[in-house]
């Protein structure tokens, strides 16, 4: 196990280098010059000499690889430059908005668990019966709706027609979180419910279930004590993996509901071509995603005795 952990951490290094390199190279694709952009946004027309001097000061006249390395050094120190638009420190702005996004993500995952695990199990147990068909139908509908459509539909029905919840969030209170969380949970649950159903069905088809039944063990006992325990491992892994994609998927929802997180920050930055901010968003989201995946992998290994003890799975 210790060797496995060590190996996974070593594998992380090239991935992180790749992520940072791609994010850095991406901004070079922009084709616009950072210094030019800075002065244009400040509304000043300046001579070529001043631009060149500023470029030298910022190290932009150095070769690409050297620029990348000094940028990487800054990244490690939490120095990602200043925003073209607001002139504030990029890293600090990003960090100040991160808790709101994490709150939204956490609540959505919680809601997804509450909705999809019981329904997924129910669908698996009632396989090919009316309940199963109904649940599968609903998950299919949810799967075919893009998040922003769900968001606007909910706005129209829950907030405007029924007036139960505020249309746009004011701050990050639980009440204003309800609509964005519901939106994300609906989209995620429809995907996740299918996976829970498949995982439980997979387990239900194993021979020990028949064995238990033949010995007269109650179906509910088999389900709770054996099947769910075994299936839970897969379920947890799948859920943890979806957290990463959720982190990326919040951007549209955040900007619809005016949720003051990093997603909205990024969307606004993209509209205003605030490249350092976009860069910070891309790099940090990717790093968080990679770390979440790593933790999931390690958890999976720690929780499954067959893997932990080095017994090969069938």
């Amino acid at each position, binding site marked *: 196990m210790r060797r496995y952990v060590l190996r996974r951490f070593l594998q992380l290094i090239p991935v992180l280098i790749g992520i940072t390199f791609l994010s850095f190279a991406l901004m070079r694709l922009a084709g616009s010059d950072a210094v030019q952009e800075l002065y244009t946004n400040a509304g000043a027309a300046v001579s070529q000499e001043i631009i060149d001097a500023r470029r030298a000061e910022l190290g932009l006249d150095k070769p690409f690889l050297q620029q990348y390395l000094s940028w990487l050094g800054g990244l490690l120190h939490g120095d990602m430059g200043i925003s073209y638009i607001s002139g504030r420190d990029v890293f600090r702005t990003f960090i100040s908005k991160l808790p709101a996004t994490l709150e939204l993500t956490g609540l959505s995952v919680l809601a997804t668990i509450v909705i999809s695990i019981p329904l997924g199990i129910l669908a698996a147990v009632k396989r090919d019966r009316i309940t199963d068909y109904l649940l599968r139908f609903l998950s299919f509908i949810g799967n*075919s709706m893009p*998040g922003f*459509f769900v968001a606007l539909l909910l706005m*129209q029905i829950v907030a405007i027609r029924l007036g139960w919840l505020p249309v746009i969030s004011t701050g990050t209170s639980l009440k204003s979180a309800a609509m964005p969380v519901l939106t994300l949970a609906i989209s995620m649950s429809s995907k996740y419910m299918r996976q829970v159903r498949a995982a439980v069905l997979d387990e239900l088809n194993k021979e020990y279930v028949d064995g238990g039944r033949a010995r007269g063990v109650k179906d509910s006992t088999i389900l709770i004590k054996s099947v769910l325990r075994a299936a839970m491992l897969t379920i947890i892994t799948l859920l943890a993996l979806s957290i990463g994609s959720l982190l990326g998927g919040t951007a549209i929802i955040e900007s619809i509901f005016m949720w003051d997180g990093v997603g909205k920050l990024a969307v606004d930055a*993209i509209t205003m071509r605030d490249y350092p901010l*976009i860069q910070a968003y891309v790099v940090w989201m*990717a790093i968080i995603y990679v770390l979440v995946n790593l933790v999931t992998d390690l958890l999976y290994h720690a929780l499954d005795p067959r893997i932990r003890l080095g017994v090969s799975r069938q």
Partner: protein
Amino acid sequence: MSQVTVRKQKRKKNHVRTRLIVFAVLAGILLLCSLFSAYLTPCDPYLQDLSNAKAAPSAAHLLGTDRYGRDMLSRVIIGSRTSIYSTLLLVAVVTVTGTVVGVFCGWQGGKWTDTVLMRISDMFLAFPGLVFAMAVAGVLGGGLHNAILALAAISWPKYARIARSQTLAQKEMPYIRAAVLAGSSTAKILFHHILPNIIGPILVTAMLDIGTMMMELAGLSFLGLGAKPPAAEWGSMMSDTRSLITTAPWVTLAPGFAIFLSVMVFNLLGDTVRDYVDPKSR
């Protein structure tokens, strides 16, 4: 295997075939709609009529009118061209790029070119979903083609991996060795022998991805990173009119239902194709 199970399986196969035909026809109708959208619109989708702005759905305008009095039904129909056509273009680009890279890597199998290309694909896979696509589209400055490029950048590795593993498996088959021994050229082996044998799973994946890609493309357009107004595209139409959700919800929701229905048809078709090709995966 008893007689009964065989009969049961046959029935199931027939059932899947019926579904396949039904959904293929539905998808075909959608495609025809998007191809001939210019002739199907009841009104001019760009004609403004401010005296009749934000009119509720009626016999004259089945889906109502938007804030400039443009007929929503016509706009949704004309929007299908951009939305469906660009999604299919995206899927085609991704499938071809991924397959070419994957087959190349698989054929090289373990040489440094293979390793380098696979590590590059790992880099792209390390970014969560839309984050990288958003940044690429943002940096390139929006527009439909840049949005397609951005989504292609994050989607090709999946296809490259499938194609690579399939190619690796085929390469070891006796018939390929025989072909090599018989002196067939590499190009002939790749195109005549390997490609026809690996294309099945790739095409099934592509079919299953059409719905997701359509939603992602619409999402980018919604953020203003895809098609730009006044061009009618479902995602940007929704974003453009989202402030009307309180006063004239049909304007915002009509394109949304159009996305929903098209995604659903393509998802159903994808699922059915998978069941048809590989009945085990159920």
